[in-house]
């Protein structure tokens, strides 16, 4: 066994990673795009890089693909060090946002493009192309040209082309952002189904949180060239590790206060209880409390429920089945909250502009973070 491989298969680690990113750094002339990124991708999983534009997610993907060169660090694929191999010596298929289909070749020729240089015979290639077109649901489009297909269809052809050579890793670079909203939602499910069916380890880059939440096994949230959190979609949403993650994924309310110890925090005149907090706040620390719009109790509030308060409804934004009410409590010194109410609750609880209602903030849902101004 190779020595480096032994190093990274140290005991205690789970089964070998399909891909391992170790201490990747990328410096451009003026700034660092990636700073010491570590990551393990499990075999067969769908991993999403999620972050705002400029966070380094695409750069990381391109480094994994060998299309950019890292300043330092290592990439292992199934234990093999590919860090300094050119793109054509690595093992992956890739789909770009622009599809990059060859416009002058038929769909069949596009899908079979990577097969033609292997040992495969003509008949074999034809069979494989037919199989792939079947797989992506375009069995009759082989003789057409890319310009004759819709955006979504072109994207599926690009996917078939990437899968044709049976790579060990599939890279998707914002694969859905060039599509219209409806098609995007449809293709989400389809890509996920395909990925599971083929069982291929997949990394997808996206800036669309809904896409990441609905498709990924695990999400890597990135910001300013650093990984903020890695976790399942549920983890990321329910237990954001940093204020950035809480803010970037989903909607969130922020209340300013300070720590009283014992998981209690003073906000305005109220003492809010927060069960899910890490300890480690000093009494008197300024904190920000993060609360999602749906994390409130509005019906059948037991008298001993913590964090009960009376609030005034300032504004109701009607959005359809689920609406947002902006409320404020005197006890919070006027800090306002946006809360979700279903349309039925809106009627049942008489949530209307100017009305007062009773609510309780879920103690097990509030996340507290130290109030440090992020370095701008």
């Amino acid at each position, binding site marked *: 066994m190779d020595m480096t491989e032994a190093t990274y298969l140290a005991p205690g680690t789970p089964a070998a990673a399909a891909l391992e990113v170790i201490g990747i750094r990328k410096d451009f002339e003026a700034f660092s795009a990636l700073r010491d990124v570590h990551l393990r991708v499990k075999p067969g999983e769908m991993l999403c890089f999620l972050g705002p534009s400029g966070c380094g997610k695409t750069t990381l993907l391109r480094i994994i693909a060998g299309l950019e060169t890292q300043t330092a660090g290592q990439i292992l694929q199934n234990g093999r060090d590919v860090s*300094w191999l*050119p793109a054509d010596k690595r093992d992956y298929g890739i789909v770009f946002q622009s599809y990059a289909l060859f416009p*002058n070749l038929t769909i069949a020729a596009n899908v079979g493009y990577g097969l033609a*240089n292997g040992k495969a015979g003509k008949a074999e290639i034809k069979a494989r192309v037919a199989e792939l077109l079947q797989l992506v649901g375009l069995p009759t489009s082989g003789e057409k040209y890319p310009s004759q297909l819709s955006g979504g269809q072109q994207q599926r052809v690009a996917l078939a082309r*990437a899968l044709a050579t049976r790579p060990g890793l599939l890279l998707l670079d914002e694969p859905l952002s060039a599509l219209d909203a409806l098609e995007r939602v449809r293709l989400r499910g389809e890509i996920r189904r395909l990925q599971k069916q083929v069982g291929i380890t997949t990394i997808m880059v996206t800036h669309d949180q809904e896409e990441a939440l609905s498709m990924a096994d695990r999400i890597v949230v990135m910001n300013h060239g650093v990984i903020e959190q890695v976790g399942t979609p549920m983890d990321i949403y329910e237990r954001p590790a940093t204020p950035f993650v809480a803010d970037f994924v989903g909607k969130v309310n922020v209340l300013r206060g300070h720590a009283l110890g014992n998981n209690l925090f003073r906000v305005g005149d109220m003492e809010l209880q927060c069960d899910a907090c890490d300890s480690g706040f000093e009494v008197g620390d300024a904190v920000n409390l993060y609360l999602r719009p749906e994390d409130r109790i509005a019906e059948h509030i037991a008298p001993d429920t913590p964090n009960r308060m009376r609030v005034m409804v300032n504004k109701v934004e009607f959005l359809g089945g689920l609406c947002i009410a902006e409320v404020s409590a005197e006890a919070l010194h006027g800090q306002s909250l946006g809360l979700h109410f279903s349309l039925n609750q809106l009627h049942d609880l008489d949530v209307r502009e100017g009305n007062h209602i009773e609510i309780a903030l879920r103690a097990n849902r509030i996340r507290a973070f130290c109030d440090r101004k992020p370095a701008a």
Partner: protein
Amino acid sequence: MNTLARPLAATPALPQRASMHWSRDEVIARALLLCVMALLAVFLMAPLFTILVNAVLDKDGNFVGLGHFVTYFHTPSLLRAAWNSIWVATVVAAISVPAAFVCAYALTRSCLPAWFKGTFRLVALIPLLAPSLLSAISFVQWFGNQGALKFLLGGASIYGAPGIILAEIYNTFPHALMILVTALSLADGRLYEAATALRTPGWRQFTTITLPSCKYGLISAVTVVFTYVVSDFGAPKVIGGNFNVLAVDVFKQVVGQHNFSMGAVVGLLLLVPSIVSFVIDYRVRRKLKAQLTARSVPHLPKPRPLADSALAVFCVVVCAMLLATIGMAVYTSVIKLWPYDLTFTLRHYRFALIESDMAAAYTNSLVLAFSTAVCGSLIVFVGAYLVEKTRHMAMMKRAMHLMAMLSMAVPGLVLGLGYVMFFNHPANPLNVLYQTMAILVLSMIVHYYTSSHLTAVTALKQIDNEFEAVSASLKVPFFKTFVRVTVPVCLPAILDIGRYYFVVSMASLSCAIFLYSPDTILASVAIMHMDDAGDIGPAAALASLIVVTSTVVCILYSLLTRVLLSRTQAWRNLSRG
């Protein structure tokens, strides 16, 4: 096992920066790019550098510093040439650009019928196919000592500034027209709709929307015209008389007096306006491009009977003058002797093609134009591809792009002068090339590199940037994708470059004037010599032949490309279904 592995795992030594292994693809790409760069280095940079060196050496090769420049600026006759060049170029720009603007406006913003616009465009572009000598010959026939319209000058002579100005207006008109048509077609219809909704009168829309939107086009047109006139050699040679300009001065210093040092000094001075205009034009074009990419709605002109008819009249007058110029040249070539014997004859053609000692010139020009078209489009496209579509070679690519852009800033005469000094040097192993057809072809490729390069770059920018990345992921070598995808997709642009090279090499004079031998004499050079010898008929015949040849080639080209494109580009015009 555990105990052994642990210490290792505890300190996973991160690898230091290693260098990327070059793949075979990258080695090939680098090697190819180096070849193209070497070509530009040897055939553009080295000759330019030699001029610089020569300007500070005396005849025996001693360093004299700026001595030659001092001499130059103390010689009134030499200084006058510089001044003449500048004011003549200014006058030409002041007439040619506004006239071209009105015509471009008529083509893009009027409701004149399409056939009218089409015909006008064709006639207006003819000067591009002709050597710059043709218009000069023609104006000599119209206004010269025996001229049909000599009386219009009221005793003044056409030889000198007036002749040069007239000839250069003719020569530069299509250049200005093309730039301004592009600038004026970029109109954003929404601006005009908004202005109309605000009840803005037409003239105010013109001054507040139309003029500002084509400001960059106008600047670009002025600089292009100015540079063209300063560096043109053909027209002043024929019609300039004793009126000295810089371009003719270079020729006189080098060919007439064998004063290479002074030739180098004048050559460098000739570079100054070119480089200044080049820098202005380069900056302006970038802004023009920014306008192009902005999202805009095309402007559809509304009929304005009065303005439209005025524009039509103007266009007809311009057309008539353009046709009169080319027509006189053709007419001169088929009559015995203006103005004494107007009987039809083909003897000038027979003389130019068979009897003259320069009979090989026309065939040579054909060979040159054809070779340049084939080799040029190949080299330029491969070069542009490597610059646009490969990764990791930032420094090399920047150097390559710089050289590709620089070629436009070097007047042909200066380039040719550099070739004489560089390749004719006995110590240069490349001097076997001197006076061969090969060096003429190379000089043409290099001299007209910029426009061709930009055409290729534009076409390449329009295709997806990730083709190479996709090929690499599919383990297909990049050159296979280049042949199977990139070239077919860019075929229209490649053919365009070929046609451009053919047409310009057919008519080009200034670069070749220093480089030909009796065996490789070109048609444009032969025209100059025939005109010098007073054989104005044969000169006009050869000039007309060049125009006809280029016209035929352009027609053949468009037929050929139509057939070729319908075969290979079927994918282009398919609709979704």
